[in-house]
């Protein structure tokens, strides 16, 4: 009976005990990793809910738009918001162009040699320096040596140096995601490096570059230690509620991160909901900025051209 001894296709595809075991371990692995991934979300939700709930009593439109009074324990946080805005804007206006341009140089022009290796080493190590050390550096370099004094400018420049290596790294990554074959095709038809960068490389990496820069907004807004040493005051009484509250070259300012730190740790008579209200605002800024970065990336991805 030769026919019977041949395994029929049906038995080959049937679910044997071994196959069931495989299915089971597959399922267990999937659930385990899924739970771990979900666990990531829980702390975020808990933090947001806790902070917002505790801060609710102090939160109002007025809280956002009036200046702090009585050493910061009364009134709103408008001048701190403006201070943060100044610092973030100035520091990114400095670090974004420098960072992006040096990344373009490193990725598109530089040949592998001792100079570029030193630059790479510097970038990596600079990214690992703790922010308080950046603060001390800023204090020595900008506040004293360069004679800028404690000012918005000093604080911003300190943050620029802190964000620079991260911007360089993210920009390089974005540039490297454009296939080399595109560049070679351009060089083959007699295009210069610059023509290739301008027409092909930059248009196709701009989404990654911008996302990397935008993510530094939330980082700059959240830092306390570097700005505390270089130009942000615990409390500063200012008049008016416009956008032009400070002269960035000479004035110290308030900032959200510093204000939160001060109210939460040093001020005695502040209402208990106040630090949480400030934290809510800071958190909203961070989440909003991150969301816009994600949105921008998704939008530009959808227009991806290859």
């Amino acid at each position: 009976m030769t026919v019977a001894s041949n395994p029929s296709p049906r038995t080959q595809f049937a679910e044997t005990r071994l196959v069931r075991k495989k299915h089971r371990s597959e399922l267990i692995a999937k659930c385990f990793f899924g739970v771990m991934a979900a666990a990531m979300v829980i702390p975020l939700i808990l933090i947001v809910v806790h902070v917002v709930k505790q801060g609710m009593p102090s939160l109002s439109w007025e809280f956002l738009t009036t200046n702090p009074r009585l050493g910061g324990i009364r009134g709103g946080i408008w001048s701190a918001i403006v201070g943060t805005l100044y610092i973030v804007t100035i520091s990114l206006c400095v670090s974004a162009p420098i960072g992006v341009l040096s990344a373009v140089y490193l990725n598109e022009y530089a040949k592998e040699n001792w100079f570029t290796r030193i630059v790479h080493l510097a970038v990596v190590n600079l990214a690992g320096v703790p922010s308080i050390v950046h603060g001390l550096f800023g204090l020595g370099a900008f506040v004293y040596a360069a004679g800028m004094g404690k000012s918005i400018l000093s604080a911003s420049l300190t943050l620029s140096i802190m964000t620079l290596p991260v911007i360089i790294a993210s920009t390089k990554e974005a540039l490297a995601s454009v296939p080399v074959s595109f560049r070679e095709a351009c060089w083959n038809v007699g295009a210069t490096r610059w023509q290739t960068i301008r027409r092909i490389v930059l248009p196709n990496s701009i989404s990654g570059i911008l996302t990397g820069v935008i993510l530094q907004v939330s980082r700059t807004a959240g830092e306390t230690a570097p700005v505390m040493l270089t130009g942000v005051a615990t409390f500063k009484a200012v008049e008016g509620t416009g956008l032009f509250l400070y002269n960035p070259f000479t004035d110290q300012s308030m900032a959200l991160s510093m204000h939160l730190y001060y109210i939460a740790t040093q001020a005695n008579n502040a209402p208990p909901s106040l630090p949480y209200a400030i934290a809510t605002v800071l958190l909203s800024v961070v989440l909003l900025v991150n969301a816009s970065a994600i949105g921008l990336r998704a939008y530009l991805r959808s227009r991806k051209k290859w």
Partner: protein
Amino acid sequence: MLTFVRGKNGDDTELISNLDPMRETKKIEIENLRLAYGGKEVIHGISFDVRANEIFGIIGPAQSGKTSLLRCINRTIEFTAGAKVQGMIKVDGQDVSRMKNVYELRRQVGMVAPLPVGLPLSIYDNVAFAPRAAGMRNKHHLDALVEKCLRQAALWDEVTDRLDSLGTRLSGGQQQRLTIARALSHQPEILCLDEFSIAIDPVTTMRIEDVLKELRKEMTIILVTNLVQQARRLADRTMFLWNGEIIELDSNEVMFSDNPRNRKTYEYVNGIFG
């Protein structure tokens, strides 16, 4: 035509006749070319000429240095860190290593890579890229040039009504013809094709081969190919390169006959190489 040529003794000059019909004009002259990547030599001093308006086939197994050779000719080898070129390459009698305007050299030597590359631009812009990079701005001239190149590459009929759509969205075979159109867009005198049929179907390959037969009237073509029969069909002369050395360079009648000058050629051509 009479030419003065330096004699064997070095200082006396001889008169020789250049009227010999067998002496065709040399488009590319390569003398004792050596190439090393980071100290490892991969082309070991080869010399040969490519004549004007011929189809010059280059065959040889993987790693024999065919692609590297082409990259030496248009000097894109300079983009590879650690690559060192020695010896002489002349295009139209001019030493390429001395050329100040390397971009003009690359426009004179069109290059088609093995894998099709549609740039992430519209089909029109893909073809207009090179002329624009060379400074051409006139819309009418560009339109005419784009149409001419797409026609030459046998792609025009398929894309006339969607010149604005992305080049990267074309099929592989269409992208390869787009690549050829782009290589033609800077009006080269020499066209190098590096295993152009590696990623496309036989029908498209045949269409492109017909295109090449047309193009040879206007330009010199260097055809690097893994398909021995393709070189046999198209080339006038074929060079067999192996491990960075020329095994044989002959007219196709000799190369693909039953007794080429080198035994290895016969074995490679007939697939018994090993």
